[in-house]
Every structure is written in C-alpha cells, then in structure tokens.
C-alpha cells in the first residue's frame, strides 16, 4: 500500500519530459497519468483549479489510441496539463476568476490552447488566478484565494497563482500562465517552480482575455528548463490571428539546454539588489551567480538607472489598457447581468459594480483617470516616454551582457490576507518583474533554494529581445550546478 502510494507520488512528481519517456516506453498510459492528476486535484486543498475538464480522460484515451497506432504526435502527446483561466477554451468555461464571467463558456479557443491540443496534450482544467490577472497574490479571485502548496497559510503569488501551485503540488505536468507585470515569474518563484515570460509577440495572445494589451504575454510554468523548452517549442510562433505576434524564425529551444554557462556574460544590475530586497533573497541570487561563475560564466555588476520609473509607468499603462479592455463587460452580450434595473445606464452600472471585484475596480478607476482628456499628457504620455527610456537602458546593457540576473520577488511568500489593507505595498512587490514587461523582453524565474522558513526563492534571468534560448541556457546551467 505504502509502496503504491509512493509509486504514485513518484509518477506525479515526474517532469513532463520524463513522463513523456514513460509514455513512449509504454510503461504508463496517458489515461493513467490523467487519472492520477484528477485524483490529486480532487484531493488538493489549495484551490489551484477553478474548473476541471470533464473530457480530460477522453482526451487521454485518444492520445493512448494514437500511440497504439504508432501515430503519437510528439513529446507532449498524452501529457496532462492545465491552463490559467484567462485562456479561452471552446466549450469549457473561462472565468478569469471573476463573477463577471463565472458562467462564461467561450465559443472559440485561444491559439495556445489549440496548439497544445494539436500537440496532443490533455487539458485537465482551468486554473485559479487574481481576477482578470490583476494582482500579485491570487487572493483577488471570485473563487477564493489560492494557497501555496509549500505552506497553505501563505499566498501562492500571482496573478498566475493557480498555475504555479498546480505544478508545485504535482497536479499537472506543466501549466500556462499569463504575465503582464510578473504574473508568471513571481508565483513560480513563490511556489518553487520555473516560469518564463517570453518576448512580447513570441507567443500569440489570441484568445487570452486581455488585461493590458501591450504588456500581456503567455508563459509556461514547468518543473525544469527542459520542460520549459518543450512547451515553448509547442506554442511559440507567428499567429495569423494576432497582429503583434512576431514572424522571426523559431529555434529548437531544446538545443539551448546543452550549451552550458562557459563564456556566458552575466550582468547583475545593482538597482535590483539594493533596498527592499530581503537579505536571504539577495544571498540566494548571489549563490546562483557563484554557481554559474564556477562553470565559466563572467559575472559583473551593471546598472539600469531608469529602473525607478518602471513601477509607475507600468501601473499607468496597464491600468489605462485594462480600463479600455474591460469596458466590454456590460451585461449585454455575455457574462453576469444584474437582476433588477430601470434602464440601460443602470443595467451597465449595476452589472459592473456587482460583477467586478475591488482590485479590478481600482484599476479601472485608475485607468479612467489617467486617460481623461485633462490628464492624458501628464500620465499616459509620460509613462510611454518612461517606457522608451527603460528600453534604452536595457539596450545599452545588452551590448555587454548576454543575460541579467536579479531576484524575481524581493521577498518570499507572505501570509494570506497580510497586505490586504495596503494595495500600494503589494504593487511595490512587483518592482523586480515589471521592467521586463514594459520593455517587452523575455525573462525566466528559476527556483534557487529556500529561506530560513523553508519558503522558495526565485532568481530571475532577463535577456534581450528574442533571447529565450539564452535564458534556457542559463537556467539549465544553474540547474545542473545546483544538483552537483
């Protein structure tokens, strides 16, 4: 009995690429893996899932049938995974963790959902998050907060808290999240898993419910760098439904894993290691630098002097775009509609005040304010100017370095409910991640040990535009160094 439990534990803890090998060997079936995950999801107390896909086993059986006939589609065929609940799935409700869309079933699927389905993945279900991806704790959910599997009294991070918690608790072999200001990387760091935010435009946004259009990007959350490369291979690339998706040719991301750290030029921007960064986090990041240096990397301190503007620019731009993107939830076409109303204006007003949670309303108000005719130049225009300066900073340092190394979050996971009283304090926690979105760059969070309370710490690698491969190279090298 005990042995079978631990065998199941061992099977659940496999990376996606190891699970893929088992499937290929025929020592396990997709139905078995899927059933295992479904059982674990049902038993979990951490609220990572909002909706379980009733067709998951059916999809798994189809994957097994393909394999039997020798028609397996590739390394991800039959691998059970899950999607953040702002990624549209045809026929399966997509709530954005909002009362507004609590019953909304999309008539179409996001490009990433379609690509994973075409790769043969089994969709386990949809993952909890901050409402409309607004937040850094996954507490702003109509369906209740996500708990951190490492300590259920603590936040899982956010907004893709469910996506990170599910991978950390072995409820899915990998997940997708969305990252607008750190929403993939920060929960990955807090849950002790890997999360990547690719270059803006590298992955299609079609079907991902928009929060801030110029910042949003889908990213994989995985157990290691190899899985991250596998998922990226499956979902990246030009999409005719997304005008901002990039046409640049796709490398095979698996190739990057073998290159090692020798000769890698790593910069540590001093602005990311100073005030506000906990001592334990700073030390963990320095340990990563040491590991890579030991493998022949060159590590130096550098500077991104405009970093201080990033947080304000980010909140102005993201709130303006959010306020525009969320206008469509008016009770007319789909989603929540208030019960009683005297006229159209009242219907829209009541629907929106009842359907949205506090954090979403706060961002809409902020956005409305900054886009108002009298304030547009003072806020939105200046934020865009700051954006240009921040990009310039990065352009300069990337002439000297292949990759930058920073903390992902200044602190480890804090207690649920701890910062409710002060939203600004929570906003400030995004300081290490938002610049990357503002500049449209790729970045990756790598687990790098734990603090004295046993809570995971994340180190962030940042690369130049389309530098996903170098991120994976650095991450794989750090993983190897950590194991050795």
């Amino acid at each position, binding site marked *: 009995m005990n042995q079978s439990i631990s065998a199941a534990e061992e099977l659940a803890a496999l990376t996606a690429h190891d699970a893929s090998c088992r499937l290929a060997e025929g020592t396990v079936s997709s139905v078995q893996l899927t059933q295992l995950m479904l059982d674990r999801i049902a038993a979990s107390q951490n609220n990572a899932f909002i909706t379980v896909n009733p067709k998951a086993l059916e999809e798994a059986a189809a994957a097994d049938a393909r394999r039997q006939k020798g028609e397996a589609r590739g390394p991800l065929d039959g691998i059970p995974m899950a999607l953040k609940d702002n990624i549209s799935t045809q026929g399966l409700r997509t709530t954005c963790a909002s009362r507004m869309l609590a019953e909304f079933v999309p008539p179409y699927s996001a490009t990433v959902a379609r690509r994973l389905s075409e790769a043969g993945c089994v969709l386990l279900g949809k993952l909890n998050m901050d409402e409309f991806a607004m937040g850094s704790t996954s507490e702003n959910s109509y369906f209740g907060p996500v708990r951190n599997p490492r300590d259920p009294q603590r936040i899982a991070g956010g907004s893709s808290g469910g996506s990170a918690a599910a991978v950390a608790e072995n409820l899915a072999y990998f997940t997708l999240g969305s990252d607008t200001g750190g929403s993939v990387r920060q929960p990955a760091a807090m849950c002790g898993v890997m999360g990547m935010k690719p270059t803006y435009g590298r992955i299609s946004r079609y079907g991902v419910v928009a929060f801030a259009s110029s910042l949003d990007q889908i990213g994989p959350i995985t157990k290691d760098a190899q899985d991250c490369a596998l998922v990226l291979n499956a979902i990246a690339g030009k999409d005719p439904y997304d*005008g901002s998706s990039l046409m640049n040719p796709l490398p095979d991301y698996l190739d990057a894993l073998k290159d090692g750290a020798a000769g890698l030029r790593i910069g540590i921007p001093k602005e990311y290691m100073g005030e506000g960064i906990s001592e334990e986090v700073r030390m963990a990041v320095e340990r990563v630098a040491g590991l890579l240096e030991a493998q022949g990397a060159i590590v130096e301190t550098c500077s991104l002097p405009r970093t201080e503007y990033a947080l304000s620019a980010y909140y102005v731009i993201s709130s303006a775009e959010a306020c525009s993107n969320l206008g469509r939830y008016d009770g007319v076409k789909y989603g929540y509609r208030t019960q009683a109303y005297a006229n159209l204006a009242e219907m829209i007003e009541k629907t929106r005040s009842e359907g949205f949670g506090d954090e979403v309303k706060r961002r809409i108000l902020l956005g409305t304010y900054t886009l108002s005719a009298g304030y547009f130049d003072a806020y939105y225009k200046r934020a865009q100017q700051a954006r240009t300066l921040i990009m310039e900073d990065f352009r300069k340092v990337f002439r000297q370095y292949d990759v930058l190394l920073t903390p992902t979050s200044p602190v480890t996971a804090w207690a649920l409910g701890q910062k409710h009283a002060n939203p600004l304090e929570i906003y400030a926690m995004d300081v290490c991640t938002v610049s990357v979105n503002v500049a449209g760059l790729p970045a990756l969070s790598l687990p790098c040990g734990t603090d004295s309370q046993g809570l995971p710490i994340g180190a962030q690698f940042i690369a130049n535009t389309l530098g996903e491969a170098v991120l994976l190279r650095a991450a794989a090298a750090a993983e190897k160094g950590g194991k050795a």
Partner: protein
Amino acid sequence: MDEFKTVIGLEVHAELDTKSKIYCGCTTEFGGDENTHVCPVCSGMPGVLPMLNRKVVEYCVKAGLALNCAINPYSRQDRKHYFYPDLPKAFQTSQFDQPLCLNGYVDIVAGGQPKRIGITRIHIEEDAGKLIHGADQTRVDYNRCGVPLIEIVTEPDFENSAQVHAFLEALREILLYTEVSNCKMEEGSLRCDVNLSIHREGEPFGTRTEMKNLNSFSAAAAAVEYEAQRQRRVVLGGGKISQDTLRWDDEAGYNYVMRSKEDADEYFYFPEPDIMPMVLSEGYIERIRKTLPELPAKRRERYVQVMGLPMYDAQLLTVSKFISDFFDRTVAAGAQPKAVSNFIMGDITRLLNERGLAPEKVPIQPDAMAELLDLISKGVISNSMGSKVIEIMFEETKSPADIVRERGMAQVSDAGAIRGMCEQVIAENPKIVADYKGGKVKAITALVGQVMKMSRGKANPAMVNQLLEELLK
C-alpha cells in the same frame, strides 16, 4: 439675404466596399438574419484581437488621393470609448490625431457659382451594430459591427444648403468612380452629420449645433435650411444657441435635441495597442495613385471641350462610371461621340429601364456598339433600323453585322428598286398625289411612309424622298 452668415461643416461617413470587415474575415454584405455575419472578433468576445484588413487602408488612401488629400506616411489607430449596446467592445477602433489623409478639397458648382470645399481629414474606423426595439425588449444585431467606414471631415466652408447638396453629389460621384464605396443611401452606406452656426458679418462664429442621422442629400439640405432659420429666430428673439446635438426627423421636418452640452462626451482616446502603426511608403501611395480613374468632373470637361458634346449629354453620360467608360471605349473604337451619346441616352437607357437593369448590366460590348454605328454612318442600315438592331443585341450575343445580314435588315439603296416602289405607290394613291400637286407639300411624307412600309423599313429614306419629289414634278 439678411444680416446673418451661415457657417456649415460636414462629417460624412462612407461604408467601404470591401468584401470582408475591417478586423475579421466576416462578410460586409448588407442584410442577412440577425447576428449571422459575426464571429468572436466582431462581436467583441473576451480575448479576441483585431487583424487590420489591408484593403481598408488602400481604399481610404484612394479616396484621399481622389479628394486631393496629403497622405500621412505614419498613421495609427486609436480607441474611442463609450458604452452603448451596439458597440460590443465598448470602444470604437478609429483614428484620432494621426488620420490617414489630411488637407484635401473638392471643387463644386452651386447656384452657378464655383466653390472650393476644404477636406480637413479622412480616417478609417469601424461601424457599430444596430438596436432592434421590440414591444417589450430590445435586441442587438452585430452584422454591421466592424464594417469598414471612412469619415470625411470638411472645413466649415459651406454657406448654404445648395452648396451642401452639390458637395454631397460630387463626393458621391468620386467615391463611386474610385469604387471605394457603393454609396447606397438606402443601406446607410453614406451618412452625413452637419455642424451649423450663424453669426453677423464681422463678428466671430456663433455657437454651433450638430445634426445627426441625415441619410439623404435632401434631408441634409432640408435640415440645414431648418436649422439656419431656427438659429436666426432664436438670436433675433434675444435667445442663445446652446451647443446641442440634434437628431433630424425627416418625416416631421424638424430637429430634436439628442444630447445637450452638459453631457458632452469624453471618449478617453488612446492609441490602439493591438494594431501596429501604419507606415506607408511613397511607392505604395504612388501605386494607388496610378489606379485612380479619371474623375467625373474631368470627364465632363473633356466631353464638352474636346468632343464638343452639349453639357446636358456630358452630365447624363457621367451619371455612372460604367456608362462613361462604355462611351469612351465606343468612341475609342472609332464611333462619332455625338452618335454614341444619342444611342446611350436614347435606346440603351430605354432598354435598361424596360428591363430594370443597372447600367453595368448593358449586354453590349463597346466594339459592337461602334460597329453598329459604323453600319449606320455608312448607310448600310437606317438610324431607326439601328434601334431595332440594338434591341436584338440586348437579347442575342451576335455582332450587328450578323444580325443585319441574317434578318435582311440592310437598307435598300438600289435606285431602280426604290423607283419601282415609288411608281407603284404613286399609282395606288391618286388622292394624296392630287393633294401634293395642289400645294400640300407635306402630303409627300404619307407617300414616303407607304414606300417604307412596302420595303419593310429597308428603303433608304433619303433616296425615297428624293425619287418621289422627282417623279411628282
């Protein structure tokens, strides 16, 4: 007139005649059951993204060039926000401070006076849906959502309704000739908002009102007349004009207030983050310029000054680009301009009307038309026989020469044969002959008619006339 001057500016929305919508692949076809020409993109589902239809940019640039505009090499789209159920995204994707076309003009003639109307800007945007009000509920139809529009904004250059009317006519012609819009008023393809204010000579402009919902040129002209008079009455009565948005009720013939200044709009414009800016190269603009057809005003000038046609003919020939092209090609194939014009204005127009056909449906090729006119000018058939041949050409795809040959329609110009028929008619109609000889010169037409009848229309009428006169001397 009176002590006041009227100042009028227009905002004209024209639907572009593209096959698909501006940001998705849905058809732009008019009609269809409610919400059948929709997809997740144009119905504003969560997560969708716009893909700009290149044709929309091309058509707008084409319209801009035809309206003498400068084309903005760098242009972008902006979101214009407001809540209304016909706008599924709660914003209209439009253009704010970087429109595609700037600073153009149209020359018109109104009340016999030439006038130049300035075009401030032309930009692209998407149409909204339609509310359908029932007894106890209102439904929304998104079929029109995302149909591409251009908005043409004029300078406040108009002084009266005649100029407004002439401008709209000229604009319609240009949009039709450039094939940018089908300008079907009854389908709302061309709609017009009017801004109007009055002021005394030498004083600054007055407060303006905006009139919406003007779906015909006559409605626009009537609304201008009405509003100019109303403002005069208010000002003369010591009142003030308030900056209202008015809705024109065409049946009742008056404006009512839709929105007053207190709730003036704030649209929270900001650059559309999902659509990359449009950067147009000189080469691209020139390629579009090369596709511009000769515009109707230029054609009329050429018809009158170069071809010597009456202005009346020139007007009628240019009502449709197809007819005008047909005319030009027939002339190019060697026909006499006035002869072509006569046949187009006469038989062809009549036959189209009888069959209820649009001009584009003329089943005759310009070459065949020129061939027919050649047969007439060479005397092979008479003019009136030509009408019959055209009628047959509407039904059968045969060359005029074949029709004439197969049906033996060629004119008889053999003097001997005609003389014989004339002699016979004279012999059979002693009464008419006597009248003619008694001084009733007109009686000869009755004899000509008899000969034509005997020849079944084929005798050369000029020869018949001449021979009868000779024989009756």
